Each structure stands twice: as structure tokens, then as C-alpha cells.
């Protein structure tokens, strides 16, 4: 079997603080193929952002990272920072959640995209300008020739996120990591951004790691999904498989919390919340982290960490009592 584009093995991230260590990610493994869209799903604080930032070592120095992340055969976690800097933005690019504050207010949009281009591709001024206009057109910004002379404060949130995406794909990265790219945006603009990302994947063949807590977004665009809970992988499957046959009670709970249109008659379904809260990461338990909130919890779940098992073909679940029947 050939090496995938990115193979993450046993990635763990721990933050050392005065009050002791906080385990943000614990033994996460996954593979990403070229052009694949991988959805990383979970509640706030489940470690999805931290694990993606850890790949490019963008975390503060208090973070202790272990495991490996082999990109095209080379471990990102071991390479010198100098080499890593050539990968950041060129091979693996980031789109952050906050389009309002992720652009430098002192420079025009054109100059900021040009900065990335000249850093990685050493283009001349004219070439960079031309390419910037092309990029803005690619992310469907109208009148790009004019927009490149504008400052971030003159653009709307959706426009800014498009600029961020243009900047991210400027050098034709192999992987685009999008951390909640649509969360801060209006729903109508969300749809536009998602269709743009789908389009970019088709046209540029970019693999996308999409970090989100929104299952609708995942259903819309992802090929494969990883559900994370308390820093660990709870379930992993192809998107259709996951939505049709969710096995982990947490996944089932998440799906139950998605609003659905009224199916028949006027019996409107109440949204199902998952009781309890995400556990504090400082005291990560030695048993199934979801047990306190789980309807299927028993003695076993409260005493051991469930291993990842392949329940169905290509469908991994970390649960002692998997099964999609009897949705919680």
C-alpha cells in the first residue's frame, strides 16, 4: 500500500501548566489521501483544532507534542523549523475561523496575498499582482482588480474569508486545513464558502482537513469523517457510512442534536441534547471519557479505555457497546 499524503500516528498533545498537565489530544491517528476531504468533528475543546495546529507546530512552546505526522514521507514533527517554514503556507495551508481579525489591517488585500506569493514562489511584482487577481477571481470575488487595492476593513466577513482562502491556496498547497471556516459567517455565506472549497478541491486537487462542530457542513463536503471526543478518536468512517450507521453513542447523540425538518404530519421533534458536559482535560479519566454522559455506560466502560475496533468494513469505533439501533 503506498504511503498516503499525510499519515498521522499516535499524535498526543499535552500542555504543561503550573496546575499540572492538560491533555488536549491523546493518541490520534489518521491518514489523508490526495484530494480527500476529511472532516474532523467534535464539541468545543475536544482537541480538533489543537491537533491540526500541532501538525505544523503552531502551538505555543508550552505544548508537548509526541507521535509522528509524516507528510510525503517526512515527519513534520521532527524536521527543523527552517524546513517546516517552507511547508507552512506552501504545501500545507491554514484557513482560520476568524476572518474579521485574520488579515493585517495595515496593508491592502493585494499586498498580503502578494507577500505569501513572493515568499514561497519568488514571483516578480507584476507576476504576483497578476496571480493575485487570478486568485481573487478563483475565490469568486467580484472586481478583483479593484479589490486588491482595498484594506481589510472595507470588506465584509464573507469577502475576508474568501481572501483568506485565496491566500491559503495561493501557492497551490497539497493540503488545506480549514478550522471552522464558516462558523463566524452568515448561513447564506457559509454555503458559498463551502461550494468554493468543493470547487477548489476539484480544480486544484487539494486535500482538505475540515475542522467543524457542524455535522451539516460535514455531510455537505467531507469524504471521510473522524468524530473526536475529549482528545481521542471516537469514531471514523466514510461520510455516508457514518451518517447511515453511526455506531458510537456520542456520534448518535451529535446526529440527534441536528435540527431536522418535520418529517410527517405536524409532530415536531424536540432536539435531543447530550446530557452533561465535556470533561475537563486536566483529569482525563482512565476509562471511556464519554461514560458519564452515555446511556449505554456500564461497569466496563467506567473501568477501561475502549480500544478502536473495526466494527464494519472501514468503520472504526472506540466503544464497548457500539451499534446504531435504538438511537439515543
Amino acid at each position, binding site marked *: 500500500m503506498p504511503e498516503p499524503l499525510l499519515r498521522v500516528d499516535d499524535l498526543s498533545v499535552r500542555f504543561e501548566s503550573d496546575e499540572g498537565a492538560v491533555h488536549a489530544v491523546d493518541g490520534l491517528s489518521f491518514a489523508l489521501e490526495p484530494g480527500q476531504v476529511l472532516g474532523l468533528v467534535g464539541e468545543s475543546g475536544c482537541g480538533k483544532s489543537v491537533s491540526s495546529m500541532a501538525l505544523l507546530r503552531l502551538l505555543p512552546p508550552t505544548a508537548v507534542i509526541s507521535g509522528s505526522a509524516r507528510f510525503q514521507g517526512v515527519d513534520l514533527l521532527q524536521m527543523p523549523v527552517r524546513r517546516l517554514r517552507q511547508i507552512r*503556507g506552501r504545501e500545507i495551508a*491554514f484557513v482560520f475561523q476568524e476572518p474579521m481579525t485574520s488579515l*493585517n489591517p495595515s496593508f491592502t488585500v493585494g499586498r498580503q496575498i502578494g507577500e505569501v506569493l513572493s515568499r514561497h514562489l519568488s514571483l516578480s511584482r507584476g507576476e504576483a499582482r497578476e496571480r493575485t487577481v487570478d486568485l481573487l477571481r478563483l475565490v469568486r470575488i467580484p472586481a478583483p482588480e479593484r479589490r486588491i487595492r482595498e484594506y481589510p476593513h472595507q470588506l465584509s466577513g464573507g469577502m475576508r474569508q474568501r481572501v483568506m482562502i485565496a491566500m491559503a491556496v495561493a501557492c497551490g498547497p497539497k493540503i488545506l486545513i480549514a478550522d471552522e471556516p464558516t462558523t463566524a459567517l452568515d448561513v447564506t455565506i457559509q454555503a458559498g464558502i463551502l461550494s468554493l472549497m468543493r470547487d477548489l478541491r476539484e480544480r486544484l486537487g487539494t486535500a482538505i482537513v475540515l475542522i467543524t462542530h457542524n455535522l451539516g457542513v460535514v455531510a455537505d463536503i467531507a469524504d471521510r469523517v473522524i468524530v473526536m471526543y475529549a482528545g481521542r478518536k471516537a469514531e471514523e468512517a466514510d461520510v455516508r457510512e457514518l451518517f447511515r450507521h453511526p455506531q458510537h453513542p456520542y456520534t448518535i447523540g451529535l446526529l440527534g442534536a441536528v435540527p431536522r425538518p418535520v418529517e410527517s404530519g405536524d409532530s415536531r421533534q424536540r432536539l435531543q441534547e447530550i446530557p452533561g458536559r465535556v470533561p475537563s482535560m486536566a483529569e482525563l479519566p482512565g476509562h471511556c471519557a464519554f461514560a458519564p454522559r452515555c446511556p449505554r455506560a456500564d461497569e466496563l466502560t467506567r473501568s477501561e479505555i475502549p480500544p478502536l475496533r473495526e466494527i464494519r468494513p472501514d468503520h472504526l469505533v472506540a466503544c464497548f457497546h457500539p451499534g446504531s439501533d435504538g438511537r439515543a
Partner: protein
Amino acid sequence: MSYVEVAPLVTPRARRRRLLLRRFVRRPFAVLGLVVALAFVVSAILAPVVAPANPDATDFNALLAHPSSEHLLGTDELGRDILSRIIWGARASIQAGVLATLLAMVIAVPIGLVAGYYRGWLDPVISRFTDVLLAFPFLIVAVGLAAILGPSLLNATIALGVGAAPGLIRIARGEALALREEDYVRAAVANGAGGPTILARHILPNMMNTLIVQATVTIPAAIIGEATLSFLGLGVQPPTPSWGVMLSAAQPYISDAPRLALYPGLAVVCCTLSFNLLGDGLRDVLDPRTQR
């Protein structure tokens, strides 16, 4: 998708500039400060043209003369025209004020940026060092340095610049510390930018407002500093005119001819006040946090 395109009448940069200008003009004291400060700067530059008389020409027929049409502010103990000496004295003051501030910025900004952005072991070392320097009053440091360097306008300027640097280091460090947490800085790191690029393109430009405002506070402090050093004989040497030198020379005549001290003193007050008003106005205009 269809957008209604509004034709831009002015470029964005010009529009922003006009907005800032409008905000500035609404503040009468700031405008007054700008006008007076400009008047001082212009008359200092054009001293040979503006001054009614040679500041060094003595007239022994008119010693300590009262103000008259010939000598608008009277003459000093050697019969020199006071107005002309004040105008020429502005040269030393403005020169010392501006150059010392520039020197302080050149020293302080890189150090503060490095300390605030890279942190590590450098930050506490630099911070403690500036804390120690800040424990000494600005003028004491400047007087000490000027005494070591020897009396001259250049040395006084260097002393003032070095003396003003610790405070600016602290400000630049604080700004860098705050700006490094900005999303666009994190985004730049994720895009492969290295430390120098981030400092030059993302942190320094976004702290310019603060630095400009700080400069308008440092300039008057340096002007007073120059007058003080010259007064103490550590700056401009007589007979070269300087406000501090004039004040010093006026001491024996303080009861007979108080105007000898009054006019240069007024010049110091007006000049520094104008820069301070200008600085206050600029802070209000440039810093959105103080918007009313």
C-alpha cells in the same frame, strides 16, 4: 451572484486619511498645538530669515533695554536682541527634541520588538534592565550621561535620546506582546513567515500609531531636557543661543530685568505645550479605544 458596484471616487487610502483629518480638525486644542508647534519648527529652520537681528550682535548702548520697536522683546545684559536669540535658540531645542526622540526610537523599538515578540530568556533580561534604568528619573540619567560625554549640543542630544529609550522600550515591548497574539500574526506564521518578516510587516506597522503618539510626548520632554542641560552648562555652550543658556544667564538679573528669564521660559512652555496638545489630539484620532 450580482453586486452593485459603486464607483470609487477616491482611493481607500485617501478616504481614510480624509476621515482622520476631519476627526483631527474637530479638536481645537489639537489644531492649536499643531499650528504653534509648526510655527516653532518653521522659525527654527528659517531662523536666519525670520530673526530681526543677529543673535550674537552686541549693542553696548542698549544694555538690558526695555522692549521697543527696535528690540521687540528688549535686549539682554550684553545688548543682544532677545527675540532673535529665542528664535535661534529654538534651533537647538527643536534639533535636540527631534533628534533625541529619533535616537530613542532607533534604540528602543528593535529591542522592544525582540523582547516582546520572541520572549524566551531575552525578555526578562531586557525588561529587568529597563526597569532598573527607569528607576532613575529621566533627567538624572540624561545629566549623568551628558556629564560623561562632555558638554555640547550633540552630546546633550545623545544623552537625552539614550535617557528616553528605556520608557520607549517598555512601550514597544508591550505593543509587540499584544500584537503577537493577533490572529493575523498567527495566520502569517501558519503561512510560513519567519520572525523578521512578522516583526517588519505585521507588528511594526500596526504599532506605528502608538509610536507616533509617543514621539509627540517624547519630543517636548527632550526639549525641556535640552533646556535643563544647557542651563546646567552641560548642553549648548554660551554664547551660542539656547533657551537653557538664556535662562542661566538671566539669573543675576532676575530682580532687575525678569523678562530676561520670562521670555525664554515662555518659549519653553509654549513649545512643549504645543507638542503635548498635538500629541493628545493625535492619540484621540489614531487610537480607536479613546473614541468618544
